[in-house]
């Protein structure tokens, strides 16, 4: 159990997907303007990450042992169809949630965090349960980073910043500072 907890914590804060591994930067830059949308995007990501982890485990165990060179191709095809199915299911069973998620759901396909999760999980040889905890930790970490970033950006909108620095430059500097803060978690697990 403590191993599983270590995997969860490591993926969530120590090796945060966005701030330490640079995965999922597009939503991090794109939808981190408001706390509410950031939170919703994070939750959609957790959902897709967990299902992807299950699928990647299935592919690794039953299919890719016979054809390892198909790894990248099969992962991306499965992720693309998975997002499509999730989108249809959400639309069918909860139209309200579907409207709230809007464009964010299909955009998850091209989020590198999803493919990254599948590949990291394979490279590290995680089993089913380890993979699930890894996905959950990664998703929580993404959500945490998104919400933190959105709260900071809501504040910087009202502060006085030199004109040249406005826009993406400022967002990147803030992200760098956040990333620096997250490095403080590095001693958490080795201790």
């Amino acid at each position, binding site marked *: 159990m403590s191993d599983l907890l270590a995997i969860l914590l490591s993926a969530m804060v120590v090796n945060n997907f966005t701030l330490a591994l640079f995965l999922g*930067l597009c939503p991090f830059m794109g939808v981190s303007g408001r706390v509410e949308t950031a939170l919703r995007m994070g939750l959609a990501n957790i959902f897709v990450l967990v299902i992807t982890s299950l699928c990647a485990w299935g592919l690794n165990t039953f299919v890719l042992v016979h054809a390892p060179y198909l790894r990248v191709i099969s992962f991306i*095809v499965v992720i693309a169809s998975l997002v499509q199915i999730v989108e249809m299911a959400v639309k069918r069973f909860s139209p309200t949630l579907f409207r709230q998620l809007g464009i964010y759901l299909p955009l998850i396909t091209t989020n590198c965090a999803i*493919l990254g999760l599948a*590949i990291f999980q394979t490279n590290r040889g995680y089993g089913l349960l380890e993979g699930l905890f890894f996905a959950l930790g990664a998703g929580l970490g993404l959500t945490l980073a998104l919400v933190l970033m959105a709260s900071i950006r809501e504040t910087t909108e009202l502060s006085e910043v030199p004109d040249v620095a406005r826009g993406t430059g400022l967002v990147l500097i803030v992200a760098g500072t956040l990333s620096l803060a997250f490095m403080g978690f590095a001693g958490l697990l080795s201790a």
Partner: protein
Amino acid sequence: MRATTPREDLLRGIWRENPVLVQMLGLCPALAVTNTVENSLAMGVATFFVLCGSSLLVSLLRRLIPGEVRISAYILIIATFVTIADMGLEALVPDVHKALGAFIALIVVNCMILGRQEAFASKRPVGRALLDAVGTGAGFIVALFLMGAVREIAGMGSFLGVPLFGAGYEPWVVMILPPGGFLTLGLLLIALSAWQRRRRAAATAGGPGPAAEVRP
């Protein structure tokens, strides 16, 4: 769509519409693997190869791919070239392959590549598509090289592994760690924006002289 000359197709991606520095595409590899010049160049060349290969094939097949499934078809073509690049790097330069790790496979989801297929290669003849891919790919290499050079020089005091300063140099270790990626790109963008402002101000002050940038 506005007609462009072959020269424009080739040159615009390198600087004026640079994929990373101006269009903000492909940020994930630009931040993740640029801690040394060597890694940056390897990533740039691998992406260049994938982009040229996919643009060529997409442009050749543009009349055969049905519109409804075009994105899936592009992704499959890109994934095929990424697999080739992955295996090629592993066979030729195993050390670099190990350093780049999962990020080679992640070239598949580099939005710059899919963007070029959707916006350009799928609508133009093969020659133009290839010119555009070469230009955009070169622009990507330029941006990665800039990032890698700044981070390696500041973070390790060396360039391509060759020490630049004496033993008294205290390296800024943070620059080769993840926060350094964000900070370097942020500062680079701010510097670029300041430089453009100054040029624009100079151009309006002196009238629209030859130095004024002609924007479409």
